[in-house]
């Protein structure tokens, strides 16, 4: 018995999030910019229709956008993350088995459900009503075909957001309308390689001899061909292992050339990473700090470096992690470079409850734990960085550009939607 897999994908997710609290954005072209307002990373359908591409740099397109009345938003990951979590919560009511694949996609097992289309339609309507986010649902026997089904659902208005490809004849029809690069994980270079072997369409890929494919293209492509035939090769990844590392990093709004500015940025990142660490009940044994110059400015001298500091005892105390991070920062600092980005990675994570001290050092004291808890609570209630380490700086000239960010409607009491 084949288990139906549903891929639920939020339609133009970032643009939909922006529209939820700003009805004036509906029906108008909306683009969302990458961190630091660099380039376009999300588009509404209206923006796509204007020919705006993913990755289009903002500073080269300002006039074009203004001429067409394109609404530009800086990315608001705080909002997107909150709404993504809500969507997943609603999805969990529709299946016991679910894999969150990305911020706007999840694979669901529809095992045991007989009325697949009806189930998918109810799911879609519920997600829309509860969270305000429109989604498309693709149902198929494998993940690869579920991706195809989802794409077909999006492209075919008459399907109203649900496409069921459980039947081989429907799979055949859907695949016949796609190009190779429309398949999951097939980029231009891979498609060119396939074409060189005489495989020019998804149907030809499906019908190619699997062992011949493995010989010429590797096991991944063999699996893809099998999945296109309806033979599952990739199970849902249901269990969420605790994070192996926690990263906090950002590009700078303007190049950083002063050591104290870099130290402030690293201190801010360590604070954020430590907060994430504590939220998951973990401690870190290793702190890594990394910096890089801007590789897209060939006129600049380039420098990419990281330094790693091991801690005697794993900790979740921001002040201890900060000391290690500052030591690493001092070690990797070089004068005369224009730094573009810095970040910290916390490694060797383990549950806080299992930490053991050694002869000279003790695990985080109750006093330290209480301080960190108080800091997290204050920042949770009164907004991010109400209480922060002075080392992370007050002025922050280096801070990321996000000039057109919408409010944190769902996570900050000061940012709530105001209603007349």
């Amino acid at each position: 018995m084949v288990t139906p897999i549903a891929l639920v994908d939020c339609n133009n997710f970032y643009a939909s999030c922006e529209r939820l609290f700003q009805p004036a954005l509906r029906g108008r072209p909306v683009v969302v910019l990458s961190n630091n307002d660099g380039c376009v990373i999300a588009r509404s359908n209206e923006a796509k229709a204007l020919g705006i591409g993913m990755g289009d740099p903002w500073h080269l397109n300002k006039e074009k956008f203004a001429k067409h009345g394109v609404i530009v938003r800086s990315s608001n990951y705080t909002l997107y993350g909150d709404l993504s979590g809500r969507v997943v919560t609603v999805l969990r009511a529709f299946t016991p088995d679910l894999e969150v694949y990305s911020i706007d996609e999840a694979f669901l097992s529809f095992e045991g459900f007989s009325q697949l289309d009806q189930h998918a339609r109810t799911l879609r309507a519920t997600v829309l009503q509860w969270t305000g986010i429109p989604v498309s649902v693709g149902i198929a026997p494998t993940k690869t075909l579920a991706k195809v089904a989802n794409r077909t659902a999006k492209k075919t208005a008459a399907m109203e957001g649900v496409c069921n490809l459980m039947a081989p004849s429907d799979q055949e029809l859907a695949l016949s309308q796609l190009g190779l690069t429309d398949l999951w994980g097939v980029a231009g270079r891979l498609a060119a390689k396939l074409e060189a072997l005489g495989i020019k369409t998804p149907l030809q890929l499906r019908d190619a001899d699997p062992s011949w494919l493995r010989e010429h293209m590797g096991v991944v492509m063999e699996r893809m061909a099998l999945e296109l035939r309806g033979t599952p090769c990739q199970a849902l990844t249901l269990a969420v292992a605790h994070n192996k590392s926690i990263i906090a990093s950002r590009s700078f709004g303007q190049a950083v050339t002063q050591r104290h500015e870099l130290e402030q940025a690293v201190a801010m990142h360590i604070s954020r990473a430590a907060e994430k660490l504590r939220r998951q009940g973990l401690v870190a044994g290793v702190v890594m700090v990394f910096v890089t110059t801007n590789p897209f400015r060939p006129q600049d001298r380039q420098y990419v470096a990281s330094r790693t500091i091991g801690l005697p005892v794993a900790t979740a105390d921001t002040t201890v992690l900060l000391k290690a991070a500052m030591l690493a920062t001092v070690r990797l600092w070089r004068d005369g470079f224009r730094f573009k980005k810095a970040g910290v990675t916390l490694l060797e994570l383990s549950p806080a409850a299992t930490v053991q001290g050694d002869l000279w050092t003790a695990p985080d004291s109750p006093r330290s734990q209480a301080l960190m808890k108080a800091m997290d609570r204050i920042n949770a209630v009164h907004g991010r960085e109400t209480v922060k380490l002075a080392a992370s700086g007050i002025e922050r000239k280096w801070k990321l550009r996000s000039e057109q960010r919408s409010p944190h409607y769902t996570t900050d009491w000061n940012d709530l939607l105001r209603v007349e």
Partner: protein
Amino acid sequence: MTSGPSSHPIACEIRTHLAVPCFVTSISAGFPSPADDYLDTPLDFNELLIVHPAATFAVRVVGDSMVGAGVYPGDIAVVDRSITATDGAVILGILHGEFTIKRYRSRAGAVWLEPANPAYQNIRITEDSAFEVWGVVRHTIRML
């Protein structure tokens, strides 16, 4: 000094300690608390205010059109999107592109929005009105 056996110091060496328990502060073992059987979790305001967490949003009231219904400027309105509006519900809606909080009225095929303040007029909703219900206001929270 008088002479007597007790006045002669006796050289001795203390080799062992015997710890004698001394009940100075609270006793943690022994008598069970009579409340043990009745322990319950503390009151949780989330439980009171939020039935469907994924569908519940908070917004700030700034207008005075609903003061008669106890919705005051400065209040935080708790809005549940999972509830379908019925006649009489206080709703957060979008009318002609603007958010508004009003009482939703739906009787005999007619739909209108009813303010709770005599200074405001009812708003008739027709086929041509760009209107939708965004969510149902379940609570307001007010700082005194």
